[in-house]
Protein backbone atom coordinates (compact mmCIF):
# COMPACT_ATOMS: atom_id res chain seq x y z
CA UNK A 1 0.00 0.00 0.00
CA UNK A 2 1.50 3.25 -1.03
CA UNK A 3 1.87 5.99 1.47
CA UNK A 4 0.72 9.45 0.72
CA UNK A 5 3.70 11.72 0.50
CA UNK A 6 2.25 14.22 2.86
CA UNK A 7 4.86 15.49 5.25
CA UNK A 8 4.15 14.64 8.85
CA UNK A 9 3.78 17.87 10.64
CA UNK A 10 3.88 17.48 14.36
CA UNK A 11 1.91 20.10 16.18
CA UNK A 12 3.45 21.57 19.28
CA UNK A 13 0.77 21.13 21.83
CA UNK A 14 0.45 23.70 24.56
CA UNK A 15 0.81 21.14 27.30
CA UNK A 16 3.99 19.81 25.73
CA UNK A 17 5.55 23.26 25.56
CA UNK A 18 4.43 24.02 29.10
CA UNK A 19 5.88 20.78 30.32
CA UNK A 20 9.18 21.46 28.65
CA UNK A 21 9.26 25.02 29.99
CA UNK A 22 8.68 23.77 33.51
CA UNK A 23 11.45 21.26 33.09
CA UNK A 24 13.69 24.05 31.82
CA UNK A 25 12.90 26.23 34.84
CA UNK A 26 13.67 23.29 37.09
CA UNK A 27 17.02 22.77 35.41
CA UNK A 28 17.79 26.50 35.72
CA UNK A 29 17.05 26.41 39.44
CA UNK A 30 19.30 23.40 39.88
CA UNK A 31 22.01 25.17 37.92
CA UNK A 32 21.67 28.23 40.18
CA UNK A 33 22.03 26.04 43.25
CA UNK A 34 25.11 24.52 41.63
CA UNK A 35 26.38 28.03 40.94
CA UNK A 36 25.99 29.20 44.53
CA UNK A 37 27.22 26.03 46.14
CA UNK A 38 30.10 25.20 43.84
CA UNK A 39 30.95 27.70 41.11
CA UNK A 40 31.26 30.79 43.33
CA UNK A 41 33.34 28.83 45.78
CA UNK A 42 35.74 27.89 42.99
CA UNK A 43 35.98 31.50 41.89
CA UNK A 44 36.42 32.83 45.39
CA UNK A 45 39.02 30.19 46.16
CA UNK A 46 41.01 31.46 43.20
CA UNK A 47 40.66 35.11 44.30
CA UNK A 48 41.56 34.23 47.89
CA UNK A 49 44.61 32.32 46.74
CA UNK A 50 45.72 35.31 44.65
CA UNK A 51 45.22 37.60 47.62
CA UNK A 52 47.26 35.27 49.79
CA UNK A 53 50.06 35.16 47.22
CA UNK A 54 50.15 38.96 47.08
CA UNK A 55 50.47 38.95 50.82
CA UNK A 56 53.22 36.35 50.82
CA UNK A 57 55.11 38.37 48.24
CA UNK A 58 54.73 41.62 50.15
CA UNK A 59 55.86 39.98 53.37
CA UNK A 60 58.84 38.37 51.72
CA UNK A 61 57.62 34.85 52.41
CA UNK A 62 58.65 33.54 49.01
CA UNK A 63 62.23 32.91 48.01
CA UNK A 64 62.58 36.01 45.92
CA UNK A 65 65.15 37.22 48.42
CA UNK A 66 63.81 40.75 48.37
CA UNK A 67 63.13 42.06 51.79
CA UNK A 68 60.12 44.30 51.61
CA UNK A 69 60.31 47.68 53.26
CA UNK A 70 58.81 46.86 56.64
CA UNK A 71 57.33 50.32 56.93
CA UNK A 72 54.00 49.55 55.32
CA UNK A 73 51.54 52.05 53.97
CA UNK A 74 49.25 53.02 56.80
CA UNK A 75 46.09 51.99 55.01
CA UNK A 76 45.89 49.28 52.36
CA UNK A 77 44.04 49.97 49.12
CA UNK A 78 40.56 48.58 48.59
CA UNK A 79 40.70 44.93 47.64
CA UNK A 80 44.29 44.58 48.79
CA UNK A 81 45.11 41.84 51.31
CA UNK A 82 46.93 43.07 54.40
CA UNK A 83 46.56 40.41 57.09
CA UNK A 84 45.62 36.77 57.65
CA UNK A 85 43.16 35.35 60.15
CA UNK A 86 43.29 31.87 61.65
CA UNK A 87 40.73 30.14 63.86
CA UNK A 88 42.57 27.19 65.45
CA UNK A 89 39.39 25.60 66.78
CA UNK A 90 38.15 25.24 63.20
CA UNK A 91 41.22 23.26 62.22
CA UNK A 92 44.78 23.95 61.22
CA UNK A 93 43.80 24.62 57.61
CA UNK A 94 41.31 27.37 58.47
CA UNK A 95 42.97 30.57 57.37
CA UNK A 96 41.96 33.48 55.19
CA UNK A 97 43.77 36.50 53.81
CA UNK A 98 41.78 39.56 54.88
CA UNK A 99 41.29 42.24 52.25
CA UNK A 100 40.53 45.92 52.69
CA UNK A 101 36.92 46.99 52.18
CA UNK A 102 33.45 45.47 52.51
CA UNK A 103 32.03 46.05 49.03
CA UNK A 104 30.76 43.05 47.05
CA UNK A 105 33.89 42.99 44.91
CA UNK A 106 36.15 42.97 47.97
CA UNK A 107 34.22 40.25 49.78
CA UNK A 108 34.42 37.95 46.74
CA UNK A 109 38.06 37.31 47.61
CA UNK A 110 37.54 36.74 51.31
CA UNK A 111 36.75 38.52 54.57
CA UNK A 112 37.04 42.29 54.27
CA UNK A 113 37.82 45.03 56.77
CA UNK A 114 35.36 47.83 57.47
CA UNK A 115 37.47 50.79 56.39
CA UNK A 116 36.24 53.05 59.18
CA UNK A 117 37.48 50.71 61.91
CA UNK A 118 40.87 50.09 63.47
CA UNK A 119 43.69 47.81 62.31
CA UNK A 120 44.64 44.51 63.98
CA UNK A 121 46.72 45.03 67.10
CA UNK A 122 45.46 48.58 67.62
CA UNK A 123 43.33 49.72 70.54
CA UNK A 124 39.72 49.89 69.43
CA UNK A 125 37.78 47.61 67.11
CA UNK A 126 39.17 45.73 64.08
CA UNK A 127 35.92 44.84 62.29
CA UNK A 128 35.67 42.36 59.43
CA UNK A 129 32.69 41.21 57.32
CA UNK A 130 32.54 37.84 55.58
CA UNK A 131 30.17 35.67 53.58
CA UNK A 132 28.31 32.93 55.36
CA UNK A 133 27.08 31.08 52.25
CA UNK A 134 28.84 30.90 48.92
CA UNK A 135 31.90 32.86 47.73
CA UNK A 136 34.15 30.77 49.90
CA UNK A 137 31.83 31.06 52.90
CA UNK A 138 34.61 32.03 55.34
CA UNK A 139 32.16 32.80 58.15
CA UNK A 140 29.83 29.84 57.73
CA UNK A 141 30.71 28.25 61.06
CA UNK A 142 30.91 31.27 63.34
CA UNK A 143 27.98 29.92 65.32
CA UNK A 144 30.25 27.09 66.48
CA UNK A 145 32.70 29.39 68.25
CA UNK A 146 32.82 29.12 72.03
CA UNK A 147 33.94 31.48 74.77
CA UNK A 148 37.73 31.88 74.87
CA UNK A 149 38.27 30.29 71.45
CA UNK A 150 41.20 32.00 69.76
CA UNK A 151 41.11 34.12 66.63
CA UNK A 152 44.68 34.78 65.52
CA UNK A 153 45.51 37.62 63.14
CA UNK A 154 48.86 37.75 61.38
CA UNK A 155 50.10 41.13 60.19
CA UNK A 156 53.35 42.09 58.54
CA UNK A 157 55.05 42.45 61.92
CA UNK A 158 53.14 40.53 64.55
CA UNK A 159 50.77 37.76 65.57
CA UNK A 160 47.76 39.09 67.48
CA UNK A 161 45.64 36.65 69.51
CA UNK A 162 42.03 37.50 70.33
CA UNK A 163 39.74 35.42 72.57
CA UNK A 164 35.95 35.18 72.18
CA UNK A 165 34.16 37.11 74.91
CA UNK A 166 31.48 35.50 77.12
CA UNK A 167 28.34 34.98 75.09
CA UNK A 168 25.23 34.57 77.20
CA UNK A 169 26.27 34.70 80.83
CA UNK A 170 25.77 37.47 83.36
CA UNK A 171 27.44 38.77 86.49
CA UNK A 172 29.64 36.28 88.31
CA UNK A 173 29.23 33.62 85.64
CA UNK A 174 30.41 36.13 83.03
CA UNK A 175 33.39 37.11 85.18
CA UNK A 176 34.29 33.46 85.66
CA UNK A 177 34.15 32.75 81.95
CA UNK A 178 36.15 35.89 81.14
CA UNK A 179 38.77 35.04 83.74
CA UNK A 180 39.52 31.77 81.91
CA UNK A 181 41.38 33.59 79.17
CA UNK A 182 41.43 37.34 79.80
CA UNK A 183 43.60 39.29 82.23
CA UNK A 184 41.98 40.17 85.57
CA UNK A 185 41.68 43.82 84.49
CA UNK A 186 40.06 42.80 81.21
CA UNK A 187 37.73 40.37 82.99
CA UNK A 188 36.60 43.19 85.26
CA UNK A 189 36.01 45.60 82.38
CA UNK A 190 34.05 42.85 80.61
CA UNK A 191 31.89 42.19 83.67
CA UNK A 192 31.32 45.60 85.26
CA UNK A 193 33.24 48.09 83.12
CA UNK A 194 32.92 49.61 79.67
CA UNK A 195 32.82 46.21 77.93
CA UNK A 196 30.04 44.80 80.10
CA UNK A 197 27.55 44.92 77.25
CA UNK A 198 29.84 43.38 74.63
CA UNK A 199 28.76 39.82 73.90
CA UNK A 200 30.99 37.17 72.35
CA UNK A 201 28.25 36.43 69.83
CA UNK A 202 24.83 37.95 69.32
CA UNK A 203 22.26 38.53 66.63
CA UNK A 204 21.26 42.02 65.60
CA UNK A 205 19.62 43.90 62.78
CA UNK A 206 21.34 45.16 59.68
CA UNK A 207 22.23 48.80 60.13
CA UNK A 208 23.34 48.30 63.74
CA UNK A 209 26.63 49.98 62.96
CA UNK A 210 27.47 50.52 66.61
CA UNK A 211 28.79 46.96 66.70
CA UNK A 212 31.83 48.23 64.80
CA UNK A 213 32.43 51.24 67.06
CA UNK A 214 35.72 51.29 68.97
CA UNK A 215 33.70 50.11 71.98
CA UNK A 216 30.80 48.12 70.47
CA UNK A 217 27.52 49.75 71.38
CA UNK A 218 29.21 53.09 71.90
CA UNK A 219 29.66 56.09 69.62
CA UNK A 220 31.41 55.64 66.30
CA UNK A 221 33.95 58.34 67.09
CA UNK A 222 37.70 57.79 66.96
CA UNK A 223 39.05 55.48 69.68
CA UNK A 224 39.98 57.15 72.96
CA UNK A 225 42.98 56.23 75.10
CA UNK A 226 43.04 53.11 77.17
CA UNK A 227 40.71 51.02 75.03
CA UNK A 228 41.18 47.29 74.66
CA UNK A 229 41.82 45.81 71.24
CA UNK A 230 38.84 43.95 69.83
CA UNK A 231 38.11 42.02 66.67
CA UNK A 232 34.53 41.97 65.40
CA UNK A 233 33.25 39.57 62.76
CA UNK A 234 29.92 40.18 60.99
CA UNK A 235 27.95 37.90 58.70
CA UNK A 236 24.34 37.32 57.74
CA UNK A 237 21.79 35.46 59.83
CA UNK A 238 19.88 33.15 59.62
CA UNK A 239 22.15 31.29 57.27
CA UNK A 240 20.39 32.07 53.97
CA UNK A 241 18.76 35.30 54.98
CA UNK A 242 19.67 38.96 55.23
CA UNK A 243 17.06 39.63 57.87
CA UNK A 244 19.63 39.83 60.65
CA UNK A 245 23.34 39.86 61.29
CA UNK A 246 25.46 37.57 63.43
CA UNK A 247 28.14 39.53 65.31
CA UNK A 248 31.16 37.96 67.01
CA UNK A 249 33.40 39.94 69.40
CA UNK A 250 36.79 38.82 70.68
CA UNK A 251 39.30 40.70 72.83
CA UNK A 252 43.07 40.93 72.26
CA UNK A 253 44.99 39.00 74.87
CA UNK A 254 48.43 38.71 73.33
CA UNK A 255 50.60 40.12 70.61
CA UNK A 256 53.96 38.63 69.69
CA UNK A 257 56.42 39.85 67.08
CA UNK A 258 56.71 37.74 63.93
CA UNK A 259 59.86 35.65 63.71
CA UNK A 260 60.49 34.11 60.29
CA UNK A 261 60.09 30.36 60.34
CA UNK A 262 58.22 30.30 63.65
CA UNK A 263 54.52 29.94 64.22
CA UNK A 264 52.94 30.77 67.58
CA UNK A 265 51.77 27.85 69.71
CA UNK A 266 48.22 29.19 69.81
CA UNK A 267 47.73 28.06 66.19
CA UNK A 268 47.99 24.45 67.33
CA UNK A 269 45.14 24.75 69.84
CA UNK A 270 42.09 22.62 69.18
Amino acid at each position, binding site marked *: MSRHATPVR*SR*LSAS*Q*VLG*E*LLLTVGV*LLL*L*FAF*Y*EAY*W*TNLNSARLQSQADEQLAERWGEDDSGERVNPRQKLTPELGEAFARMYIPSFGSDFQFAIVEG*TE*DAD*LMAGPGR*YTTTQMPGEAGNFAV*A*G*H*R*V*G*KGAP*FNDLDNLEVCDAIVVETSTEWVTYRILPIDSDGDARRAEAAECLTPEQAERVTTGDYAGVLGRHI*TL*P*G*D*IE*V*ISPVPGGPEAAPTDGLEGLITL*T*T*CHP*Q*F*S*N*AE*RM*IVHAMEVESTPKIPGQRPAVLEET
Partner: protein
Amino acid sequence: MYAALWRALPGPWPLKLVITLVLVAAVFLLLMEVVFPWVTTLMPYNDVAV
Protein backbone atom coordinates in the same frame (compact mmCIF):
# COMPACT_ATOMS: atom_id res chain seq x y z
CA MET B 1 9.61 22.50 21.81
CA TYR B 2 13.07 21.02 22.06
CA ALA B 3 12.19 18.42 19.45
CA ALA B 4 11.26 21.22 17.04
CA LEU B 5 14.56 23.01 17.79
CA TRP B 6 16.45 19.80 17.13
CA ARG B 7 14.75 19.40 13.79
CA ALA B 8 15.57 23.02 12.95
CA LEU B 9 19.28 22.39 13.27
CA PRO B 10 21.10 21.74 10.01
CA GLY B 11 22.88 18.58 8.97
CA PRO B 12 22.88 14.93 9.93
CA TRP B 13 22.47 13.99 13.54
CA PRO B 14 26.17 13.93 14.47
CA LEU B 15 26.41 17.56 13.39
CA LYS B 16 23.24 18.42 15.25
CA LEU B 17 24.72 16.79 18.32
CA VAL B 18 27.92 18.81 18.09
CA ILE B 19 26.00 22.05 17.59
CA THR B 20 23.77 21.19 20.54
CA LEU B 21 26.74 20.52 22.78
CA VAL B 22 28.36 23.79 21.78
CA LEU B 23 25.12 25.67 22.43
CA VAL B 24 24.66 23.99 25.79
CA ALA B 25 28.22 24.88 26.80
CA ALA B 26 27.67 28.47 25.67
CA VAL B 27 24.43 28.76 27.63
CA PHE B 28 26.07 27.19 30.68
CA LEU B 29 28.93 29.68 30.64
CA LEU B 30 26.56 32.56 30.01
CA LEU B 31 24.56 31.52 33.04
CA MET B 32 27.57 31.01 35.29
CA GLU B 33 29.48 34.13 34.30
CA VAL B 34 26.75 36.68 33.50
CA VAL B 35 23.22 35.76 34.51
CA PHE B 36 23.80 34.12 37.88
CA PRO B 37 26.27 36.75 39.16
CA TRP B 38 23.54 39.31 38.52
CA VAL B 39 20.87 37.15 40.18
CA THR B 40 23.16 36.65 43.16
CA THR B 41 23.22 40.38 43.89
CA LEU B 42 19.46 40.16 44.36
CA MET B 43 19.73 37.32 46.84
CA PRO B 44 19.42 38.16 50.55
CA TYR B 45 22.22 35.99 51.87
CA ASN B 46 24.82 38.24 50.30
CA ASP B 47 24.25 41.06 52.77
CA VAL B 48 26.83 40.47 55.45
CA ALA B 49 27.82 44.00 56.48
CA VAL B 50 26.09 46.18 59.06
